[in-house]
């Protein structure tokens, strides 16, 4: 009996030793609350990653936390470290500047940090950076529209919210359009990545400009509002409404050969899934990620649209 007990204890110790050798990884995932379509997609893809990766790796734990504000996210990062003992963090910061310090502090305590999409102000606060390509997000629609309009025509632009991401996209768009002197950007107003605001701004564009050849709505949610306003005004001069980010309904329209929505540009919330997966795979092996991974934004047309169609995602 005594012997048996000893053997059991020995086995348990060996087991524990083995587990340590195989590296238990606890990944904390800090993302924004689902407040619109895109962040809804982020939350869905993060949970998808948790489900798949935890099932495949018994040594892996993924804890997903969503925050509605910057202070809340900073608190969550703290809690993930103190309560959940995470040793890797994948974060999509709500704001770059104000989260740099809190993230730098957890990194200094030995947590491996992967920052997604919106960057931090100091690269020292992160081990790796994974992002979508905002420049291509603006450049590709400009190239596409210039080609579609044969280098001549009038475009109206709906911008997102005043932010660095929006500036990056719009600057890239304008830079490309400048190469085509026949194309004129009539105006660019904020639709705030919101359907209702985009509807109003588009209505007013339609009142103001009698000839519009194309709309760059810069986001699929805004494209819905713009399409409804065009439909209501029964305008036939518009040849293309280009949204962006590859929302499932927009990709579906591209697949179905919609009259106004014939192309899109990918900027899928799936990059949070990719970032979590890459971090988990690397950390389980004790490896590091490349310092910077840009997930390319690709032009979606009828030919390749089915690869970008995720009917189960909310976005």
């Amino acid at each position, binding site marked *: 009996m005594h012997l048996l007990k000893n053997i059991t204890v020995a086995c348990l110790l060996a087991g524990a030793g083995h587990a340590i050798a195989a590296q238990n990884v606890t990944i904390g995932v800090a993302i924004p609350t689902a407040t619109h379509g895109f962040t809804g997609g982020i939350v869905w893809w993060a949970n998808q990653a948790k489900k798949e990766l935890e099932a495949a790796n018994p040594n892996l734990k993924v804890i997903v936390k969503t925050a509605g504000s910057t202070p809340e996210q900073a608190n969550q990062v703290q809690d993930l470290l103190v309560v959940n003992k995470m040793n890797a963090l994948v974060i999509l910061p709500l704001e770059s500047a104000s989260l740099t310090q809190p993230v730098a502090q957890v990194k200094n305590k030995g947590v491996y940090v992967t920052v997604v999409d919106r960057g931090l102000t100091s690269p020292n606060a992160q081990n790796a950076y994974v992002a979508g390509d905002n420049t291509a997000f603006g450049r590709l629609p400009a190239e596409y529209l210039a080609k579609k309009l044969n280098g001549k025509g009038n475009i109206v632009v709906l*911008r997102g919210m005043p932010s660095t991401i929006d500036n990056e996209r719009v600057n890239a768009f304008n830079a490309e359009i400048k190469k085509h002197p026949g194309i004129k950007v009539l105006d660019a107003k904020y639709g705030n990545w919101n359907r209702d605001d985009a509807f109003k701004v588009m209505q*007013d564009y339609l009142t103001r400009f009698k000839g519009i050849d194309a709309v760059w709505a810069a986001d699929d949610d805004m494209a819905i509002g713009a399409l409804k306003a065009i439909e209501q005004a029964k305008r036939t001069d518009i040849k293309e409404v280009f949204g962006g980010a590859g929302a499932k309904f927009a990709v579906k329209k591209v697949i179905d050969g919609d009259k106004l929505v014939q192309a899109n540009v990918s900027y899928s919330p799936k990059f949070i899934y990719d970032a979590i997966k890459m971090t988990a795979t690397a950390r389980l092996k004790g490896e590091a990620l490349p310092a910077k991974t840009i997930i390319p934004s690709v032009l979606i047309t009828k030919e390749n649209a089915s690869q970008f169609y995720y009917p189960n995602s909310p976005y």
Partner: protein
Amino acid sequence: MQPTPTTDRGELSPPSPPTSTRAAGTGFPALRLKGAGPVVALVLLCIAGALLNPEFATFDNLMNVLTRTAFIGIIAVGMTFVIASGGIDLSVGSMAALIAGVMIVAMNALALGPSPPSPVATVVLGIALALAFGASAGFAHGFLVTHGRIEPFIVTLGTLGIFRAVLTWLSDGGAITLDYNLSESYGPVYYQSVLGVPIPVWIFALVAVAGVVILNRTPFGQHVQAIGSNEQVARYASIRVDRVKTLTYLLLGVCVAIATILYVPRLGSATPTTGILWELEAIAAVVVGGTSLKGGAGRIMGTVVGAILLSVIGNILNLTSIISVYLNAAVQGVVIITVAYLQRGRR
């Protein structure tokens, strides 16, 4: 919202409760005079708009502006009752979003169910559900404020979070979209015109007229203003304060439902960003229209003008490009404060 002394209200103060029946007649000309502030501001803005862009003064643009004002305007009419009685409701934007979401989910379920009713019947059921939902949510607010003795600010701040979170959960963070066949039958409610005027504008006008009648010509309306003026005195005058207050929230809930019924066919979907900041726009319309946030005298026509004023600012900013787009919100803020200042000067 503490009741305030009636002394600073001059000729506008609602009549003392026992003699409430004679009030409407004498109060009315004074109301019209007082309401001139926002009207003057609106006229000035329209002149500026027409000078900046000739398209501003077209009939189509006018209808666009009035149609988009309808949502906030209808809610603001209901909000006038709540504010006039000394209360506040911060939840209306979230409530509208949740009503839209619940309505769409229910209509889709009916349409895609085993024995679907005709699309028109489905839409009618959806509308009935929206009204019932709005009325019960409003009643719940009123009940918590009066019987629960919780500040309306806190009650509705709480439900603001609850309503939006439930919608976000229902929609999985994405969009709840109305079934295509249903939106074909429901679409005309927003897009159709009668005698050249879009349906939402008609409904807005009806709600406004009903609001004026109820607030200025019925005992209930007089009680609302009396309670907002001085709740304690109203109690001594044997006004059933709790019941009247509850009714104001219920009325607002119904207004939110009506606004949502007009909103849903526009885009045929509800998302977690639907109705964000509507509560502030509605409250701004009420205050710009001359109703004091402290309660007391309510002015429905002022509220209507205030709501239109807010839309017109946005419309003018969209029709011109002389001001940096970054400063749009600043222009709106300046106009709101200026009009409120003019109101204050008139008191």
